[in-house]
């Protein structure tokens, strides 16, 4: 059994290779760009969370205490827009994906480093324009911009916000394009398609959705803007236009977009589950292809958002069946993860806690999706808090947890420092408890009839208020659970324990180079000779006398 030398922490790495603001703002290094994104995304997440807290506070009592309905409309709209377009969609791909896609396939950078930097500027420009719109007066259409309200009646900054989203969309397109080309053309020698880590497959599938879906939302927003500007009539029934056409175009992107949010999270979780169980993933090819299946099927189900919007019953039935079908590849993943856990030697480090949390919460989110995909039950549940709970289970319980798990898992590689493990586990627990307390009462509320997007409810329904109070209490706990990592991650950048090159003792390529990595990622192009997640059987470990076996990498 060969032993492989892991490079010692190098004196120069990507973080200290150059100094100064300019060296960051003009960098073409995918790792630095990932950090730029990390900053931007955290900022928008913070703003979005403030709106969330304001919404929860308002709902504490049945009356309107804090806001009038017009202000409330703006609050949930702006919460939704910031969270969806400026946090969830770029979150994992633009930070972890940007950092890791080249490292995991053994490349020096993404295929188009300049376009990568451009995408960050585009994202920030879109974000700043949107923030401007919020400060100037805000927007109140809901994140869905339904016509004709958005085109004709709304008296708010629809065009400026729309333009912000339109611009940010191009950063998504460019990121997807960069990933696809990189994964196709820049894999290290020996890195065949079926040796790719599942994180890469997930990002490949996500990129497909990004390039196929995002242009459609771009043209849709443009049409809304022109309609508002010049009253052309394309979505206006008075001129023969069709407002439901907008809904079709919008959801043709926005349903697949929910998979832009969750597929990369699934990629992270596949890494966490396999690596922290020290086992090869169960059914590698099934997990890999289920990502592609989700990307493809995800494009065929948009009509399930229009079951109660004048869609014909036959179209409704077909969209219902297809929506059930898209749950299959999602379930394949969940079953494969659980099978991977079976008889693994599991360690419950912070990233793994997040990973396990993801599995549970995503399952609940997916199963409640089935309630919504059934025509009859959806008529009752549509536009209630049940919907709100459903998608928060997937977007927060799923994507956000996976994002945090991934951030902790790769933090030693990114920063070269360890985060404090005790605090990590503690806050993971708080997040989990806070999250469930926030959103599980909302299922019940929705089932009982509480509509979404209202800031008051009948005062004589005591059970409603109890549930709302629970939810607001949960949100506060969740908020604390999110603040703790914010503090200790920043703290650890300076004071954390110095991380080894491979602190988790794993075979993945990204662990076979220094922490933090040098600018060119590897000292020499790695040559890959084994599958992803190849852990030595227990006997082999003893022979070697260490707890891990490194994947052979020629250094």
């Amino acid at each position, binding site marked *: 059994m060969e032993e492989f030398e892991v490079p010692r922490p190098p004196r120069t790495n990507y973080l200290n290779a150059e100094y100064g603001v300019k060296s960051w703002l003009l960098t073409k290094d995918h790792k630095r760009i990932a950090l730029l994104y990390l900053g931007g995304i955290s900022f928008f997440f913070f703003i979005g969370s403030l709106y969330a807290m304001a919404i929860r506070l308002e709902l504490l009592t049945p009356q309107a205490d804090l806001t009038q309905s017009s202000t409330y409309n703006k609050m949930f709209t702006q919460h939704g827009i910031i969270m969806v377009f400026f946090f969830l969609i770029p979150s994992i791909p633009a930070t972890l994906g940007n950092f890791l896609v080249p490292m995991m396939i053994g*490349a*020096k*950078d*993404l*295929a*188009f*480093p300049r376009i990568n930097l451009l995408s960050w500027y585009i994202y920030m420009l879109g974000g700043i324009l949107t923030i401007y719109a919020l400060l100037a007066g805000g927007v109140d259409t809901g994140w869905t911009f339904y016509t004709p309200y958005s085109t004709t009646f709304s008296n708010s900054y629809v065009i400026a916000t729309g333009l912000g989203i339109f611009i940010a969309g191009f950063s998504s*397109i460019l990121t997807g*394009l*960069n990933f*696809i*080309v*990189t994964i*196709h*053309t*820049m894999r290290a020698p020996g890195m065949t398609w079926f040796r790719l880590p599942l994180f890469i497959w997930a990002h490949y599938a996500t990129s497909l959705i990004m*390039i*196929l*879906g*995002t*242009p*459609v939302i*771009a*043209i*849709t927003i443009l*049409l809304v803007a*022109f309609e508002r*500007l*010049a*009253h*052309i*009539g*394309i979505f206006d029934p*008075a*001129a*023969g*236009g*069709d407002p439901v*056409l907008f809904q*079709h*175009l919008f959801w043709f992107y926005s349903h697949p977009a929910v998979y832009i949010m969750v597929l990369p999270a699934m990629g992270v979780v596949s890494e966490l589950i396999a690596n922290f169980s020290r086992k090869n993933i169960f059914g590698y090819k099934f997990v890999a292809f289920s990502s592609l299946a989700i990307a493809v099927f995800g494009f065929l189900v948009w009509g399930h958002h229009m079951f109660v919007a004048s869609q014909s019953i036959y179209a409704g039935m077909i969209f219902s069946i297809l929506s059930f079908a898209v749950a299959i590849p999602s379930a394949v993943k969940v079953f494969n993860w659980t099978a991977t856990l079976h008889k693994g030697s599991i360690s419950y480090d912070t990233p793994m806690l997040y990973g396990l949390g993801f599995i549970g919460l995503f399952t609940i989110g997916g199963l409640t999706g089935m309630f919504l995909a059934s025509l009859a039950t959806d008529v009752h549940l549509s536009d209630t808090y049940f919907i709100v709970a459903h998608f928060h289970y997937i977007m927060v319980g799923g994507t956000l947890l996976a994002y945090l798990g991934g951030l902790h898992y790769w933090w030693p590689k990114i920063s070269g420092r360890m985060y404090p493990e005790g605090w990590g586990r503690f806050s993971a627990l708080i997040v989990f408890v806070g999250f469930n307390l926030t959103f599980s009462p909302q299922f019940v509320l929705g089932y009982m009839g509480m509509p979404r997007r209202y800031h008051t409810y009948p005062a004589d329904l005591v059970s409603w208020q109890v549930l709302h109070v629970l939810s607001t209490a949960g949100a506060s706990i969740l908020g604390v659970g999110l603040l703790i990592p914010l503090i200790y991650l920043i703290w650890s950048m300076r004071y954390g324990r110095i991380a080894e090159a491979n602190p988790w003792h794993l075979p993945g390529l990204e662990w076979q180079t220094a922490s933090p990595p040098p600018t*060119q990622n590897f000292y020499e*192009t790695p040559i890959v000779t084994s599958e992803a997640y190849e852990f030595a059987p227990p006997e082999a470990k003893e022979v070697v006398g260490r707890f891990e076996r490194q994947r052979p990498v020629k250094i």
Partner: protein
Amino acid sequence: MAEDLATTQEHAATHSALQHHFENMEQQREAGTLGMWVFLVTEIMFFGGMFLAYTLYRSKYPEAFAVASNHLDIKLGGINTAVLIVSSFTMAMAVFSTQVGKKRNSIIFLLMTMALGLTFLGIKAIEYHDKYRDSLIPGTLIPGRPFNPSPHELHLPPGMPIGNVELFYWIYFAMTGMHALHMIIGVGILSVITILAVRGRFSPEYHAPVEISGLYWHFVDIVWIFLFPLLYLLGRHLAGHLG
């Protein structure tokens, strides 16, 4: 043979245009080409939204679309179609000339392609101006000149809502306008390529940028090949019989 390959590869690997993160020229060229193809896919989806709107409203209001379409200038549209087809040919020749190392020819063909592109845009501008004259610009896009054609000149059959005709014109302007924007960008790209060609940047070993720009140019041409019949040729055989 193997040695030959090794030396050509080495030669390619040290080419001055090789960016640091690629292993060799071949990988760089592949990445660039694939990147352009992927970008063109996004373009198809972008135009796709408008094609969907077109399909929906045309099937909803076939007569209004035919009436409106008959008012487009088929001669100018036809000439423009020919102009673009020829420009695709000259573009292909420019790529070919670069590949075989004929610098002078490649520059001439690039200039011809750009000239044809500009011709197209000029003719398009004349058409737009005619529509402006006839108050056919939809909505209030042009402030002070709302959509207000004379029903007589349009040969509008009695009872047909003018709003449906306006929808056609909106789609016409959205699609051809977006296409024209792409043409302008294309001419911009080609002028950069031409400058690089004049400076002798390209050779049989390194011509990927010319090829990739060519892909873009052909794509924009193909979009027009779809737009022309869909917008200009509706119910031509019925011309004058609708009213």
